[in-house]
Structure formats: structure tokens, C-alpha cells
């Protein structure tokens, strides 16, 4: 069963002007996005700035109201509940099931609380007794490979990597059904980044985590995700199992994205095709396929008709009119 089913999610931000605050335009930050996350699966949401990946994650966390669409989340007792329709008050009891790992390990921990209290806070809020909290904190510290003595120390005593471990322990405290990780390693040094990636892989194996992994770094994504969803200007362009997507992308944007990543191998230098132009402005996206002005394969149809996300081979989805005819290059 799926932990999360997102159907045609839309989030529009109105641009208002004048004394009457009339809406003069709207930014379609997320404009009809559908995907699902299966139990125990990590789905990576990738794309460049302004593609809407962060907005999608904030909508799922209900940190902001949703314009339209459904966010069906596995509820207690086997059914599904649509988070998009819940009020703030109705959302509160469900919060414990969706937790978040933050990007910045410095601002995500309250500097005035001891590490033990930070990890115990979600437990305390949800009415876990003091004795149980203590045991659980020790268990969690062990899980993220931190010494038990960290409990009585304050965040300022720890490095970025250790703080990120604390943040992960806090996210795991309530045994959530879904974890939203927002660029959890992008603020870390390379050597520390590797430690956290390995930790996430361990936790996926040991706890069977279901995770939405929001990231821009396609290298990191290749290590940690089972499936990848690529976004461009508020829409999903391709969803596929990780390995398939990297080896043989179906959407020209995915191809361009993969080609742009500099591989840590000087022998591959100069082999890549760099996509021209810039990411489109979500306030005035191009007609038809939003990628068409940059796409080397675009035809007239791409300029006028907007492609919908449709199933392609073995568990893959793509929104490109020409997906079947093109022979795109991945990385291997």
C-alpha cells in the first residue's frame, strides 16, 4: 500500500497590487503534480530552483494551504485521509506521522535546549511519559550513532554533521510513517555528507523508512533514492526508478540535467552537452511544454500543446510528446 498518494496537486501564489490588493496574476508554483510513495520507499524530488519541489514538500507537511488537488495519506486503521482538506486543528493529531529533516543543521535545533530535550520534544508533545522518553532518546542517539552523553549537551557543542544526526533522531522519534527530507546533506562538507548519506541508507534498511527526499544534487539522489521524480516549472516531467532514469532518461530535461552534472572524473571532461537558456519564470511559463524553448528536440506541437504526465514502460511516467521517438543519453 502507498503511504502517500498525491493527485493533481496545485499551489498558486496570487500576486496582488493596488490598495484593494486585487489579484493581478498568479505564480503557478505547483501546477498539477501527481505521484505516490510506497511503503518503505524513498522517492527523490529533484529539479532546479523555482521548479516547485520545496513547495510540494511544504504542501504535504501542510505548512501552507493547498490551492487544489488531493494529498491522500495512510491513516490509522488502513484507510486514507486527504491532508489537503484538513484544517489546522484537524491536522495536529496527524502531524506525528509525517516528520521532517531540515537542510540547515544550525537553525533547525533550538540553541536553548539540550540535545536530549530536542529529541524528546516531539515525544513530550505527544504525551509520552518521562521514563519512556529517556529510554527512547538513548535508543535514538544510538540509532544515529551519537554517544549517550550528547543528551546533556547543547547544540553549539556539535559540528554540522553531528547536529544533522540530532535532527534525524528528532524526526525518527515518533516512528513516523513518512519523512520529508529537505536537502538534508547539501549544507554539509563532503566528508560529513558521506557519513549522513550512509546513515540514511542504514536507517532505510533497518527501519524501512518511507521518505520524500527533496534535493538538487543528482549525485546524492542516485545513492539514496529508489525512484526519482523530476520537476520543471511547477510540473512533473518524469518519474522513474532511479537506475532506469539515470541510464536512459525519457525526457529531454532529465537528459540535460544529467549532462550538466560534472562527474568526478577528468577523463570524461568535455563530453557533455550543455542545455542553453535559463529556467523559465513560473509567473509566466512558456506555452505548451514549459521546456520547449530550451529543448533541442522541440517541434511545433511542443509549442502549442501541453504534454500530460503519462505512463511509459515499466513503472515509468513521462510528460513529453516525443518520448517514444527520442533516443536520449543518460549516464553510466
Amino acid at each position, binding site marked *: 500500500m502507498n503511504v502517500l498518494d498525491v493527485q493533481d496537486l496545485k499551489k498558486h501564489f496570487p500576486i496582488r497590487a493596488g490598495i484593494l490588493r486585487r489579484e493581478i496574476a498568479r505564480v503557478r508554483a505547483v501546477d498539477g503534480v501527481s505521484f505516490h510513495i510506497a511503503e518503505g520507499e524513498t522517492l527523490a524530488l529533484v529539479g*532546479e530552483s523555482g521548479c516547485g519541489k520545496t513547495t510540494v514538500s511544504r504542501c504535504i507537511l501542510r505548512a501552507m494551504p493547498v490551492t487544489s488537488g488531493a494529498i491522500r495519506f495512510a491513516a490509522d486503521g488502513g484507510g486514507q485521509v486527504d491532508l489537503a482538506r484538513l484544517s489546522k486543528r484537524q491536522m495536529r493529531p496527524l502531524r506525528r506521522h509525517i516528520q521532517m529533516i531540515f537542510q540547515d543543521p544550525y537553525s533547525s535545533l533550538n540553541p536553548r535546549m539540550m540535545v536530549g530535550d530536542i529529541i524528546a520534544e516531539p515525544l513530550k508533545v505527544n504525551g509520552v511519559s518521562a521514563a519512556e522518553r529517556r529510554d527512547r532518546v538513548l535508543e535514538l542517539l544510538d540509532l544515529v550513532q551519537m554517544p549517550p552523553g550528547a543528551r546533556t549537551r547543547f547544540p553549539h557543542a556539535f*559540528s554540522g554533521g553531528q547536529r544533522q544526526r540530532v535532527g534525524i533522531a528528532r524526526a525518527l522519534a515518533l516512528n513516523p510513517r513518512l519523512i520529508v527530507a529537505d536537502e538534508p546533506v547539501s549544507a554539509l*562538507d*563532503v*566528508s560529513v555528507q*558521506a557519513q549522513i548519506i550512509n546513515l540514511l541508507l542504514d536507517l532505510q534498511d533497518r527501519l524501512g523508512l518511507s521518505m520524500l527526499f527533496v534535493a538538487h544534487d543528482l549525485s546524492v539522489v542516485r545513492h539514496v533514492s529508489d525512484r526519482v521524480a523530476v520537476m520543471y516549472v511547477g510540473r512533473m516531467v518524469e518519474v522513474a526508478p532511479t537506475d532506469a532514469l539515470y541510464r536512459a532518461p525519457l525526457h529531454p530535461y532529465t537528459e*540535460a540535467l544529467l549532462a550538466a552534472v*560534472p562527474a568526478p572524473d577528468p577523463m570524461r571532461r568535455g563530453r557533455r552537452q550543455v542545455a542553453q537558456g535559463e529556467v523559465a519564470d513560473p509567473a509566466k511559463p512558456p506555452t505548451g511544454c514549459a521546456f520547449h524553448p530550451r529543448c533541442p528536440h522541440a517541434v511545433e506541437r511542443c509549442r502549442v500543446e501541453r504534454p500530460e504526465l503519462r505512463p511509459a514502460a515499466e513503472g515509468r511516467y513521462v510528460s513529453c510528446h516525443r518520448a517514444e521517438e527520442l533516443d536520449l543519453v543518460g549516464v*553510466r
Partner: protein
Amino acid sequence: MASVTRQTPMVERVALAIRDLAVQFESEQGVVRALDGVSFDLHAGRTLGIVGESGCGKSVTARSILRLVDRPGRITAGRMLLDPGAEGEVDLAALDPESRRMRGVRGGRIGLIFQEPMTALSVHYTIGNQIIEAVRQHADCSAAEARNRAVDLLRDVGIPRPETRLRAYPFELSGGLRQRVGIAMALAGDPDIVIADEPTTALDVTTQAQILDLLRRLQAEKQIALMLITHDMGVIAEMADEVAVMYLGRIVEFAPVADVFSAPRHPYARALLRAVPSILAAPRQRLSTIGGAVPHPGSRPSGCPFHPRCAEIIGDICRQQIPAPVEPGRAGASCFLTEPGRERAA
């Protein structure tokens, strides 16, 4: 492709020679040695990649060369020779940072590209104003000439419709265009040395690729000595001719780029390369890690600064003695393992 396998000896003119550079920051908590005897050469038309994690001193190196180290930091030792051996040789370390001479070097001989171009640009003036101003600071020319030069610069860095862009304010541009303007600013004084401090870190990946291509093209056209500072091994692999790997204020390895990636000499370089996530990874592939974290430069370990995290430590010598620094101009590592007559511990 060809540039990678280029193993020709470095015959190009040395534009800048750094020797035994040391920078300290003095605070009430004690003395922090941000740079501890750094030596390297920048050659005309070549790219030196400087790579390292936070606190390794790569940005301090850039700021020292431009004499932009602010108090309480100061250069305590070393020389920075512009045009070494030539008639007009200047030691930048001996100049007054505020002097006319140094101001002429900044921008005129050495251009700087920032991570966030907005730090180099003022929000109050159009980019035209700022580039023309920068051009006129380093060249004695009329306003009209400066304007033409600014248009040329913007065209050079691949900005479409440069004449109209002159009237734009920096905040009206996208991140990629802003970085192009930042590069145009750095080139306004026609420098022969350019320092790029994480020039693509703040950019999206497709934009990053465009900017890297641009830098490479400009360097080839103008025979610039490029010092590229980054934490990204991919960018190094893509761009550098030679690589200096830094750790806690020291260069621990210096070598041609192909060497560094195929046969790294220093254990830190070896470990760092294995820790880099790769776009070519197998599904759910784990990375090898370096234990611990980079120590604060203020609590530098004794002996070899990398020894507490080193997987290849050979004994007390690593704990007690500091290995000799890398000799400038020659590939090598600052490690006891690479000293002649020493075997690698099993």
C-alpha cells in the same frame, strides 16, 4: 578532452608565485593559524583548482592574495610574488593593502569572481554604471570608450542584448545572468590572473555547466591564470589543469588533475575522493567515509593535522612531527608515506 591528457611540462609564464604564506587570526580565545606555509604557482593560461572542506583555508588564500584579510587576521609570513623573476616583480605581501599600487593590482592584475555575485554588485546602480566605473578605474579612457568596452564585456560573457542590459539593475537579473555580470566585472580591468571563489556553488546545475563553459572559453581566449576555488570534485575534474588539495591551512597534495583522480598521493585526497557521491553510483551504494569532522582551525591537532582522521597512519611520527610541505611546482604530497624509503603501512 585533449586538455586533460596534456602532460607537457609547465612552460607557461608564472604569473603569481606564492611562497610559505601564513595567515593568523588572533582573538581572545587564542591564535588561529588559518594558513600555515602555503606555496604554489599560478601559470598564465592554466587553471589551478584549489579544493578542500570548510576551514581548510581556500578562501583565506584568495583574500590574502588580494590583501583583503580583515583584522584580526594578518599575514605573518611568506611572499606573494607577482611576475616573479621579471623586471617588475612585486611582493604583494609587502604592499600596504590600502596603497594605490595594491588597488591597481586588485581588478587591474587580479580579478575576483565571487560565489554570490550580489556581493560584488551594488543594488543601487545599474550594471552599466558599475561596469563602466570598473573599466575607468583601471584604464584611462573616455566615457564613451568605457561604455563600448562594457558592452563588449557583457557580450563576451554571453549576455544577450548587452546594450539594453546596461540599464538593468542587478536584482532584475536571474542568478545565472548575475554571475555572468560578476564575471564581466572581474574582467573589467583586463586582469591576467582571475581568482574564482566557488563561482558556481550558488547556481543551478544547468546554469553551473554554462558558467563553467564560459570560464573555460574566456581563459583560453585571454590566456588567464585561473585559480578556481571549490569544494566540488566534479568541478575540479571538469576544469582544473593542476589541483591543490588543502586541509587545515596547508596544501596536502599538489598534482596534475589526472593524477589526483587516478592515483592520489595523500590519504586525505584518497579518502575525500571515495567520499564524494557520484552520479555514476550503483543503487543504494554506500560511500566510504572519513571519520570525525574537520577540526576547528583553532584546535589544530599536533603533528600532521590530518592524523586523527587518517586511516593510513603509520605511527608516532604522524602524531609528533609535521610532514614537509609540498614543494611548489612539483607534484607531491605533504605526508610521511610519500617520503622516500618509507613503505605504506599494511
